[in-house]
């Protein structure tokens, strides 16, 4: 039994997984399959249940209901040390009384491997810190500790590697560098990585598939591009980047397109990007998809007229505009500064245009602020 579970390999399957603490449901009836070899991210703000999910996969938390399978093996009730799963903890949790070498060798020794030197040296080379083998964890910088924590986990070649906000304690520059490195190491060793983070940019940089979590459930799952270009809910639209959501009514059909009436102006969008369930809807457009033009300039695609520039912020690579529309809503527009100067000024009367394929439609009963007011910088309380 123990032996079987430790050698389990294959896809990770969570079935109707639930975890409650008294009245509070941290993870709510969650079902999910993570394919073998993928880099999977659980993304969400603090308290969305992503860390609890990870801890249940690791065996550090027992599910209230549901099951966890690795390949064909049910591991729901097995102990953490009986699972072929290793974790990179948020604070690294390196053993302070052991050298770096012994920290990394810990898992191998517990599984009865006698000659660990070769494996440890190899993984130390992989994370480019072979000269630190005899040091103690407290003598290392944050970035070095992070790599050792990773080395300590991957040296065991687990079926599944769990990363709990692994880059949360690093500064921005180091974080960017480690994101690229982690992605490279995942490709190099070919393990399944499950990464928990609140940082949407980090998730998008590294993961093949992202599951956006909200209140213990998966809001939407897909590749970074799918989630960004075609979000199904306002929560996803707001949590991953920024969105302009404009209230409207679906007024007709035109082949593969829907015609939507936005405060009296008609626009088109592809049918397969509509998640509305009746005629009322919110049309969503990402700020960088908009183009601003002066009134006399001819434009193509969808157009909204009657805008007035309310605010201009020049931020180098782009200029961000706030454009007030006739119905009182301010839209965000990001224009690339590829011709050097910001061509529009505060107070200019302008039209806004964009390609219909960049439009998505949400249900009309959505809360348009969902996901935008959360503080993504808060780490999960543990």
């Amino acid at each position, binding site marked *: 039994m123990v032996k079987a579970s430790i050698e389990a390999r294959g896809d990770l399957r969570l079935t109707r997984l639930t975890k409650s603490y008294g009245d509070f449901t941290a993870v709510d009836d969650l079902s999910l399959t993570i394919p073998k070899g993928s880099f999977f991210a659980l993304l969400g703000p603090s308290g969305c249940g992503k860390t609890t999910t990870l801890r249940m996969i690791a*065996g550090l938390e027992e599910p209230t209901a549901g099951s966890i399978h690795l390949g064909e093996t049910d591991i729901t009730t097995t102990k953490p040390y009986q699972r072929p799963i*290793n974790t990179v903890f948020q*604070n690294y949790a390196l053993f302070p009384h052991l050298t770096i070498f012994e920290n990394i060798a810990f898992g191998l020794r517990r599984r009865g491997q006698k000659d660990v030197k070769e494996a440890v040296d190899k993984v130390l080379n992989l994370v480019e810190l072979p000269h630190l083998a005899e040091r103690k964890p407290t003598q290392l910088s944050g970035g070095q500790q992070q790599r050792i924590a990773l080395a*300590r986990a991957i040296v065991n070649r687990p079926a599944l590697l769990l990363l709990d906000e692994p880059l949360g304690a690093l500064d921005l520059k180091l974080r960017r560098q480690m994101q690229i490195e982690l992605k490279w190491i995942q490709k190099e060793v070919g393990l399944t990585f499950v990464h928990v983070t609140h940082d949407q940019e980090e998730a998008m940089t590294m993961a093949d598939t992202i599951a956006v979590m909200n209140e213990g459930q998966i809001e939407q799952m897909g590749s970074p591009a799918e989630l960004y270009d075609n979000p199904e809910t306002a929560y996803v639209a707001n949590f991953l980047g920024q969105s302009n959501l404009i209230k409207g009514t679906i007024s007709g059909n035109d082949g593969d397109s829907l015609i939507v009436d936005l405060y009296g102006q008609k626009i088109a969008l592809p049918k397969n990007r509509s998640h509305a369930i009746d005629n009322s809807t919110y049309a969503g457009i990402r700020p960088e998809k908009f183009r601003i033009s002066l009134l006399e300039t001819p434009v193509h695609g969808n157009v909204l007229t009657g805008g007035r520039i309310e605010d201009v912020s020049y931020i180098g690579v782009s200029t961000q505009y706030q454009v007030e529309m006739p119905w009182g809503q301010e839209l965000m527009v990001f224009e690339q500064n590829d011709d050097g100067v910001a061509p529009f000024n505060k107070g200019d009367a302008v039209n806004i245009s964009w390609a219909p394929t960049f439009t998505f439609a949400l249900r009309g009963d959505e809360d348009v602020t969902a996901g935008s007011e959360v503080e993504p910088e808060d780490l999960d309380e543990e």
Partner: protein
Amino acid sequence: MSQKLKDATIPTIPLGARIQRWIGRNLIRIYAVFAFTYLFIPVAYTFAFSFNDSGKSNLIWKGFTLGNWQNPCGAPEVCNALGNSIKIGFLATFFSTILGTMIAFAIGRHKFRGRSTSNLLIFLPMATPEIVMGASLLSLFLVLKINPGFWPTVIAHIVFCISFVVVTVKARIASLDPRLEQAAMDLYANEFETFRRVTLPLVAPGIAGAALLAFSLSFDDFIITNFNSGTLTTFPKFIYVSAARGIPAQANVIGSAMFFLALTIVIVGQLVNRRKVR
């Protein structure tokens, strides 16, 4: 020229103000000197009089000799008493450290019914006046028809040492990051291996500290020992009894030796710690 002008324009600080400033700056040092003098005069006195060529009573300075140090067991009974104290100390330390550590883990790590009550009760022996505890233990032993002597003393010492061990070890356990144990379990260590490889090594300094504390408490104890030891003489009892007719200089020798031994242990401990950090 300009130099002269400068000198002239800088007003000299009056002497009174300068003295005041010096005192202000050095007050904490002056205080420290007094405090340490106060603390160490008795130790220095004890040490100095261990070299006294005293004869029977060691109250008046009669001349310098190394005789007491060369023959620390010279006074009748002194080394016998010392031996008893060390034996009792080691036994009390051994058992109270093991029992106390187990209690500390139970209270510090596990939730069970009566946990907070146990936590409170652990403090009771520390709060009970020694004279009350000594007397009641004696009556208990007599009721159980156990005669005062070596083993009743050991048992009495274990009783009052346990509380101190629990408190010391518990503090260390509380400062232990539970994620380290989770990490060990995650890395294929079962419960026993996790305890042996991670928990115990990390709590060990606390246990060692608790053991030292228990030993010094046991070695030093007079009141409870006096009730429960019967005719057995321990080192504190020996000193108390001989105080009536003059404490032999050998007692000063042993006292000073104990002090320097303790000092050495502390210094070595510090050095080892510093090396570990580096």
